[in-house]
């Protein structure tokens, strides 16, 4: 990594941290985010994007994890732009990329968060009425209150495609799924024989199966980025608290038991960072080894984040267990992230296939 490259990342990180620290939640935050151009980071420059790579998106995601931010960035930019960029170019695709970059469109991709095995949750069937879409996906990130849905589906010839549909189309239903993690929003998307026009079925470029797996890996690495940022926030908060909270007449951070627990958190966060950075690099470079790197980052960083947030709660003592302290929100986000887009065990199973 050249220093110029990492300097640019440091700058992006600083801006993101300020913005997410101040913008608050909901629509105001999203307005500030689109004004900063983050949804268009990976949109090509001719389409009014920044022409950047996943490596830059990873920086934003990490800061969103750090702030436990509630924005549609994951659904619209990470998955939306990511899915569209895997498609064959065309006017429809290009217009939507342009709209995401400008903030005019906020789509979601109906990728099921509870599947470790990457297979589209929807299928297209031919019928006298035309093409019909069937299927359902749960735990779809940012599925609620979007203006476009991109539904990965198996075409009747068995090839993965992306169906572009309005969320209010007949036969398609989107319902919010209230979850313990209240910092993000997920939804259930079902299609019950929705009629699909031929021109809204978009083909993946190159090898469609591989493209769909890449989309899944992108989702997994993106969650790992969020977990990394979250871990860092919990470590920072814990170290700060241990430095000022006094018991037995001295800061609790001066006790070896507390200090060593913080050191272990730091080691886990550091190892997570290296794995997540490697996965983000591999993903942006289209490295053939990126699947393994993605599984390593997802399994390690998301498991570490639960450990780190759990230790944060423990070391904050009684205060950490209160609703008011907010540690619980991070712990819940970390726990959900650990389960999204492939559990640690599922990802390790994928890694272990290479040993046989």
């Amino acid at each position, binding site marked *: 990594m050249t220093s110029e490259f990492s300097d640019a990342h440091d700058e992006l990180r600083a801006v993101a941290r300020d913005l997410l620290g101040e913008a608050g939640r909901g629509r105001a935050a999203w307005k500030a985010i689109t004004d900063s151009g983050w949804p268009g980071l990976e949109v090509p420059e001719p389409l009014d994007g920044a022409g950047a790579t996943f490596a830059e998106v990873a920086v934003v995601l990490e800061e969103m994890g750090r702030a436990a931010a509630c924005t549609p960035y994951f659904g619209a930019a990470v998955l939306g732009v990511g899915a569209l960029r895997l498609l064959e170019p065309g006017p429809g695709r290009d217009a939507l990329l342009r709209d995401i970059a400008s903030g005019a469109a906020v789509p979601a991709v109906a990728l099921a968060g509870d599947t470790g095995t990457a297979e589209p949750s929807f299928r297209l069937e031919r019928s006298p009425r035309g093409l019909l879409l069937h299927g359902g996906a749960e735990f779809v990130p940012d599925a609620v209150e979007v203006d476009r849905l991109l539904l990965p589906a198996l075409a009747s010839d068995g090839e993965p495609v992306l169906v572009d549909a309005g969320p209010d189309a007949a036969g398609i239903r989107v319902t919010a799924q209230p979850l313990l993690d209240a910092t993000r929003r997920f939804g259930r998307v079902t299609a019950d024989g929705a009629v699909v026009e031929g021109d809204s079925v978009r083909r993946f470029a190159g090898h469609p199966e591989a493209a769909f797996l890449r989309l899944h890996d992108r989702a997994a690495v993106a969650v790992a980025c969020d977990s990394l940022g979250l871990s860092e926030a919990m470590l920072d908060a814990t170290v700060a608290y241990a430095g000022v909270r006094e018991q037995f007449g001295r800061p609790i951070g001066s006790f*070896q038991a507390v200090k060593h627990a*913080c*050191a272990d958190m*730091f080691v886990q966060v550091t190892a997570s960072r290296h*794995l997540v950075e*490697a996965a983000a690099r591999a993903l942006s470079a289209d490295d053939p080894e990126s699947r393994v790197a993605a599984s390593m980052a997802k399994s390690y960083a998301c498991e570490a984040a639960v450990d780190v947030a759990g230790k944060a709660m423990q070391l904050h003592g009684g205060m950490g267990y209160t609703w008011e302290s907010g540690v619980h929100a991070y712990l819940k986000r970390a726990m959900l992230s650990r389960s999204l887009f492939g559990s640690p065990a599922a990802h*390790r199973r994928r890694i272990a296939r290479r*040993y046989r």
Partner: protein
Amino acid sequence: MTGDLDEFRAEVRGWCRAHIPANWRRAQTGVSDAEFAGFQKTWFQELRRAGFAVPHWPREWGGGMPVAEQIVLHQELAAHDAPRLVLAFVAIHHAAATLLAAGTDEQRRRHLPAILDGEIWAQGFSEPGAGSDLAALSATARRQGDGYVVNGQKVWASGAAHADWCLLLARTGPEAPKRRGISCFLLDMTTPGIDVRPIRQATGESHFCEIFLDDVVIPRTGLAGRENDGWRVAQATLAAERGMTMLELAERLGNAGFRWLVETCTRPGPDGVRPVDDSLVADRLAAFETELTALRALCRDLVERHDAGTSGPADASVVKLFYSELLQRLTGFGAGIAGPAAHTELRKPRSSGWESGAWALDFIGSWEWTIPGGTSEIQRTVIGERGLGLPRDPGAGR
């Protein structure tokens, strides 16, 4: 740059295939001390002829390899399971770092070429009463005439049985605060009054010695750095151990070490079942490979940041702790998978890394990483205090 590195990698690969002795592991299992030392010295000269023995030294002394190439060199030596430089370790790392950082021109001219010719060094730092609290050491060096007279006892001096010279810490300022009264010396091991006795360790081997010093005279020219500045000199020396040497160990563990672990898990057991077909075993293997990947990235980062002068105060401690505990868990897992058969390997090949595939002995030997050079507990304290800025324990004397 990448093209040049690819070329260099190909060159190292070719060299490895041509020069690494076939079956050296079997040949080095159960050998005598003298045979081990002979093998080590021969291997060192092989590496030296290729320019691979001291690539980390400055160019004028026979090194000067760019860091990116050193990384490739260690990766390839590890991938080809080359013998480790065990005997020369203290000489080419600790002694050389001390001489380069604090030595006089004369001391450098006297010792650096000699090290290349095979001069062996030991490290006389720890004492029975000064382990984790190294600054509490009590060996004394009293000024007398144009030199010093040293008395005391050193312990855990690795390779001291073969050493020509010893890097010694002794107290020259008995009245000063404990860190400000220590000096660093270059001690000729043939000096009268030195008694070296091997310590038999948990694995049954004797890598370490006790050194008894009874009125040992060191000339004035044997002082490294300024009098009473030895603590600072030693810190720089210890830091030298933690960069490229950790990268080498991480590459070994990640290459041959993990390869053997997978082999151990894919070999059918007495019941005909392959351990790897058990999903719990496969899961642990994947977790180890993940941690090894993180370890190797951590080490590359440590080396690159050290080279760029941007190291953090606890970076080396993070790497040492992560490596030591991973080594211990990985070798312990290997011993468990290998089962009773692992206990029939009564000796491991000398000149190998910390993982040799003799898992039971490797596991026992892993405490040689979690204890010396700052125990894992000390590393955690360093990470907490220097890395995270947590308050010191008011009870711990400094």
